[in-house]
């Protein structure tokens, strides 16, 4: 029995071309360019014209008025005979599995070649003529012979169609002969005739103008490495772009990376770039590209051009077969970016590639501990609690009747949940009292426990309020509230006990943008350059401790208003940025990053921008208004521990923190911390400023000489004086005392120092 293969009419390819792509006339260019980029081409020459049709093989020209002929030639690797036969003309096969090419599933050639009027391919030592699913290939020698025969056969015909077919074959013969004489063609030349009346809808018929428009669009979205010419001209000349700009979308700085789980490991697969200047021609668009070649474009609601560059090695894994979408988990990552762009474009597109250093402090990071609800519900009853239990009269208060009244009572819901869980497993402080004959609520709690048998997990809190009588409920809530307040005080004490001057915590320095003045300030504010002995870093260090205290109170508040937040470690530091124009709600205006939250795992950094654009310290921690600004920034950044983006969740958390933030306590702690820094720096130190330019020894120097005559005579006083660029000098009074003692013959160091300098 004869076995037959499925035959594929050209209509199938046409349908595939018209319906398989969102916009096939644009995809047509994308596929041709991608093939060339993959083949390592350095030059791409495109010819496009509307002309009379010619025939395929040695057939007469078809009966149609005109075709749009596209010739796409590159100087890349080209295709061998084996690749042509086993891959190019085998639908579903691809060579692009080596990780160095963009790669689809071999569907593109259905659109670029098979669906069209006719096509020919000249590559390396092969010449192919095709029409739909039919094709024939020759080596160059055979091609010359065969083309000669075909021309001979057509010469006998006088019809117009035969003439045009013969002309076409002669042109092919010239090309093939030239390639044969050159020892083969370097690269690949694809010639396709498009029917300008075919297409999915009338506006997408491949007329010459339509194809040129799409070519221009494609080039404007891409940043291709090969040099491109169109009908012998550069794209800019051809499309008459006279303002000196290039027809390409240059990618801006990296703002983010996209990552997805690949084989169980989170892997970066794309970088996100933005541009917003005048040359960003695609503002409001997100362009997905591979190696600079545009894949597809989405609209986004921000006034920036966003480019997502997919890692070429992963492109086959990431992109769908038609390369106009992302697959599975990669699409989830992209959707995440799109959501962020809509909800919070400014934060989503902050520069994520930057300098960052962490100056390791002796004390490392700070631990933010939440109140331990397990301790609250499990600790044995104290003597005071036992006495309170025996009392028959309770203080006047409103006993919460449902969970929404808990907040007013001063207890977080988590404390009740924790208590019920422990009670259920026999581990709460109530369980141990259940069998005491003098425990007045035994019966009530027994009934409460029995009620659990009929309820589902998650409904226990409702049962607590419904089944427990008010007397018993009020008693247990009173004890829980007392314990919770003690726990809060314990956690706060742990924070306050930090010694802010004896040593430092880790300090993170994060640089987004700078100018020369800010860079100079960065050196002054770098904790590695601080030195109490020489007085360096007094002001920035004071600012840092004030900022740290503002954050500390915000962290404590967060743990109070969101008690389920897991313990985390945190530290503070600097971020540097210079103003740029961004959308600020009412209009675009100059905006600078004032503070920043960074996180890695459970470690959080709260950074403040310490300087203004002119390099001066932006805040004076002695100033009440500045302290208030620091507190506001601290609350803002600490809220990011729970919610990364400025969405509704974030807004709720920030509001809760602001409602509970203890400004008085924050002010007190900030002032105390600053005083501690100043006291450490200023101990035994005096700063001198001359108020005029009179010549001769300064009055203050003469006073110093009178106070330490021996040191003055021996010319060593300068050792105790540090001179600054602003003309002031700092005298280390303690050092002056030591020098005087060392230089004076009348006093011995050990015995008389106390007498002389007491």
């Amino acid at each position, binding site marked *: 029995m004869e076995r037959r293969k499925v035959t594929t009419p050209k209509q199938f390819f046409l349908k595939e071309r018209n319906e398989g792509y969102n916009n096939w006339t644009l995809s047509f260019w994308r596929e041709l360019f991608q093939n060339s980029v993959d083949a390592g081409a350095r030059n791409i020459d495109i010819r496009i014209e509307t002309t009379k049709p010619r025939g395929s093989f040695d057939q007469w020209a078809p009966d149609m008025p005109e075709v749009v002929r596209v010739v796409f030639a590159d100087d890349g690797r080209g295709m061998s005979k084996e690749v042509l036969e086993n891959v190019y003309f085998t639908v579903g096969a691809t060579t692009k599995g080596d990780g160095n090419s963009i790669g689809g599933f071999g569907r593109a050639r259905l659109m670029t070649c098979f669906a069209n009027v006719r096509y020919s391919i000249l590559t390396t030592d092969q010449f192919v003529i095709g029409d739909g699913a039919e094709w024939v290939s020759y080596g160059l020698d055979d091609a010359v012979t065969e083309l000669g025969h075909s021309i001979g056969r057509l010469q006998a015909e006088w019809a117009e169609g035969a003439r045009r077919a013969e002309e076409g074959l002669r042109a092919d013969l010239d090309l093939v002969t030239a390639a044969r004489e050159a020892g083969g063609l370097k690269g690949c030349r694809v010639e396709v005739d498009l029917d300008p009346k075919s297409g999915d809808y009338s506006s997408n018929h491949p007329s010459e103008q339509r194809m040129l428009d799409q070519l221009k669009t494609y080039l404007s979205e891409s940043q291709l490495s090969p040099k491109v010419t169109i009908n012998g001209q550069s794209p800019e000349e051809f499309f008459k772009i006279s303002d000196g700009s290039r027809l390409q979308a240059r990618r801006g700085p990296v703002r983010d990376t996209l990552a997805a789980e690949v084989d169980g490991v989170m892997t970066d697969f794309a970088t996100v770039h933005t541009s917003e200047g005048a040359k960003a021609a695609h503002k409001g668009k997100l362009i997905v590209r591979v190696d600079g070649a545009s894949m597809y474009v989405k609209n986004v609601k921000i006034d920036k051009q966003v480019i997502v560059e997919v890692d070429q090695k992963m492109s086959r894994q990431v992109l769908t077969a038609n390369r106009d979408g992302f697959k599975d988990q990669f699409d989830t990552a992209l959707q995440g970016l799109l959501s962020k762009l809509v909800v919070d474009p400014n934060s989503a597109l902050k520069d994520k590639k930057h300098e960052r250093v962490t100056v390791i402090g002796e004390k490392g990071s700070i631990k933010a501990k939440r109140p331990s609800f397990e301790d609250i519900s499990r600790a044995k009853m104290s003597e005071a609690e036992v006495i309170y239990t025996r009392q028959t009269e309770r203080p006047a208060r409103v006993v919460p009747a449902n969970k929404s009244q808990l907040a007013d009572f001063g207890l977080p819901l988590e404390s009740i949940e924790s208590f019920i869980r422990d009670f259920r497993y026999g581990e709460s402080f109530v369980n141990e009292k259940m069998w005491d004959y003098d425990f007045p609520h035994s019966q009530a709690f027994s009934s409460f426990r029995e009620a659990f048998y009929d309820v589902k997990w998650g409904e226990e809190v409702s049962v607590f309020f419904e089944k427990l009588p008010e007397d018993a409920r009020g008693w247990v809530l009173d004890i829980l509230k007392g314990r919770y307040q003690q726990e809060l005080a314990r956690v706060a004490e742990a924070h306050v006990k930090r010694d802010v001057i004896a040593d430092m915590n880790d300090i993170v320095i994060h640089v987004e943008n700078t100018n020369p003045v800010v860079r100079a300030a960065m050196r002054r504010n770098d904790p590695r350059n601080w030195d109490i002995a020489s007085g360096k870093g007094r002001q920035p260090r004071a600012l840092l401790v004030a900022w740290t205290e503002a954050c500390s109170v915000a962290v404590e508040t967060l743990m109070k208003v969101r008690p389920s937040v897991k313990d985390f470690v945190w530290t503070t530091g600097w971020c540097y940025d210079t103003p740029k124009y961004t959308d600020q709600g009412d209009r675009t205006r100059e905006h600078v990053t004032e503070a920043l939250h960074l996180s890695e795992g459970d470690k959080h950094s709260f950074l403040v921008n310490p300087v203004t654009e002119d390099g001066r310290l932006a805040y004076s921690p002695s100033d009440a208004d500045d302290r208030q600004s620091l507190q506001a920034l601290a609350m803002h950044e600490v809220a990011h521990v729970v919610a990364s983006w400025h969405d509704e969740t974030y807004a709720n958390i920030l509001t809760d923190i602001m409602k509970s933030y203890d400004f008085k306590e924050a002010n007190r702690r900030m002032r105390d911390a600053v005083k501690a820094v100043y006291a450490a720096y200023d101990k035994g130190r005096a700063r001198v400023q001359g108020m*005029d330019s009179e010549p001769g020894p300064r009055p203050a120097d003469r*006073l110093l000489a009178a106070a330490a005559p021996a040191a003055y005579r021996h010319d060593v006083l300068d050792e105790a004086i540090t001179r600054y660029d602003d003309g002031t000098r700092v005298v280390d009074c303690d050092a002056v005392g030591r020098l005087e003692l060392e230089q004076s013959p009348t006093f011995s160091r050990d015995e008389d120092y106390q007498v002389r300098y007491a």
Partner: protein
Amino acid sequence: MAVDLVANPTVGWLTVVHDDSGLEVSTLAVGVGGLVSVEGPAGTKVIGKLTDAMLDDVKSCHRAMVVRMHGERVASAETVHFINDVG
């Protein structure tokens, strides 16, 4: 006449050291912008402006003293009324 200002923030003293025998000071004042003036029987006299670093130190000062030098010796030293608008 030469005038120096000496700020010792730890102990909170701001001292004017000068060698003008004709200068009598009853009040020392530092304005918000760091402008320093002295007041005495002869009226008010502005003696200069503080640098930023000095201004920071002066913020912590709450007492003032005037020391008059005569050559290498201290001719007089007395506390004066202090108006510190930056403190």
